[in-house]
């Protein structure tokens, strides 16, 4: 897992969900631990797309449940 990706995912998550940096750990679930509702998740995914210059199709959003999932998905997507 790229450290740089993790830091950027953390930055976007803190900004969009209004959570503290220390809460954004690899195992944290966006909905269960970080308080995101369904609209927050859509907004967060858009913010990841903007931050990393990638497209995340709707049918792939489901695999991103935790902060670690997001980092893994983004690293794979960016090759």
């Amino acid at each position: 897992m790229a450290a740089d990706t993790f830091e950027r995912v953390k930055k976007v998550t803190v900004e969009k969900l209004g959570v503290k940096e220390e809460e954004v750990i690899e195992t944290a679930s966006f909905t269960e631990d970080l308080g995101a509702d369904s609209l927050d998740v859509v907004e967060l995914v858009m913010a990841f797309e903007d931050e990393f210059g990638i497209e995340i199709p709707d049918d792939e959003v489901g695999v991103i449940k935790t902060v670690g999932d997001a980092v893994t998905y983004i690293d794979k997507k960016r090759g």
Partner: protein
Amino acid sequence: MSDWPRPSGRVVITGVGAVTPLGTGVDTFWPRMLAGESGVGPITLLDASEFTTRIAAEVKDFSAEDWLDKKDARRIDRFIAFAEASAKMALDDSGIDPTSIAEHFGCLIGSGIGGLTFLGEQYRRLVESGPGKVSPFLVPYMIPDMASGYVSICHGLKGPNTCVVTACSTGANAIGDAYHIIKRGDAIAMLAGGSEAPINEIGLAGFCSARAMTNRNDEPLRASRPFDANRDGFVMAEGSAVFVMEDYDHAVARGATIYAEILGYGFTGDAHHMTMPDPEGDGAYRSMKMALHRAGLEPSQIGYINAHGTSTPYNDKFETMAIKRAFGEHAYTVPISSTKSMIGHTLGAAGAIEALICILAMRDGKLPPTVNYETPDPECDLDYVPNVAREADVTYSLTNSFGFGGHNVSLVLSRGQ
């Protein structure tokens, strides 16, 4: 659900909150208003250099983070943040515990336009980046009813939850409709009022094109001049006011401080033109008559009128005609002021802010002035409390609000004990 208690049929105001261009909170804005200060200045919320009108009355001391949770504060539309701030102030002020009557505590906070700032930003994203980049919060932050929805969620208010959208009479309609809801027993208490945040590119452009606003860009402090012969349009403004309105018996039983009682609510339609008022002021006349009739008062008993007084050539002339027709000889003796001379026109919030001003004027025995009144207009020849606040013992007051679409609203209020 618990039963609906029998209503007393009387409705009182027991808490107030406001966000205005003269400050956030009653204790901030009210002394400045009595001192005749103006909240009008060059627009800072956007780059207005290409617009024909480049001045407005902006709220300068407001930070959403002081009132909302961090996540919402950062992104929610300004009109919803203003509403929640005012609601919180009103609840604290009244001392009521909403959870004690949650299913009988409703919410009716209107907005003339809703989340136009957020809509404008997202429309730009749609055009520049495509439909997949439009925020999932566009719809909830744009719709005018979300002020009521959001505030009810913040405070657990499970009673009647609704919204009024009647342009510049929204705030007054919201208070009037909430009065009816409590009076007939559908709720014991309501948070009611109006909120507006129209100072954004699309809002400013639309009102510039409608030729409704002043072009006195070089003298903002003198731009809003209701009833003055040289008035040339309104000054756009933003803000909100929200009241805790409550069944009289409930308020007395819990020992609440009563600011005022709503005695009469009049509302009519012009059926004339989308944006121009009736040239005889007929709808305005009938709304004042209706409010006085419902209050069971003679015109001579009204001690203060807070006019709609937008500073447009038409409104101030036709409103003056309507007051003369509704009040007869008393029109020439009753003090009338337009506080839009100081805080501009907050559109859907105006009726609520101006009802609040009536309440404070009665409480303190002080009438706010109409500033910038310099050159009398032969067609506006009443007592507009020119330029300087005045002491007066007032038991009953009336406030007018009129909106695009031909909506006319008048509220009659009495001083609390």
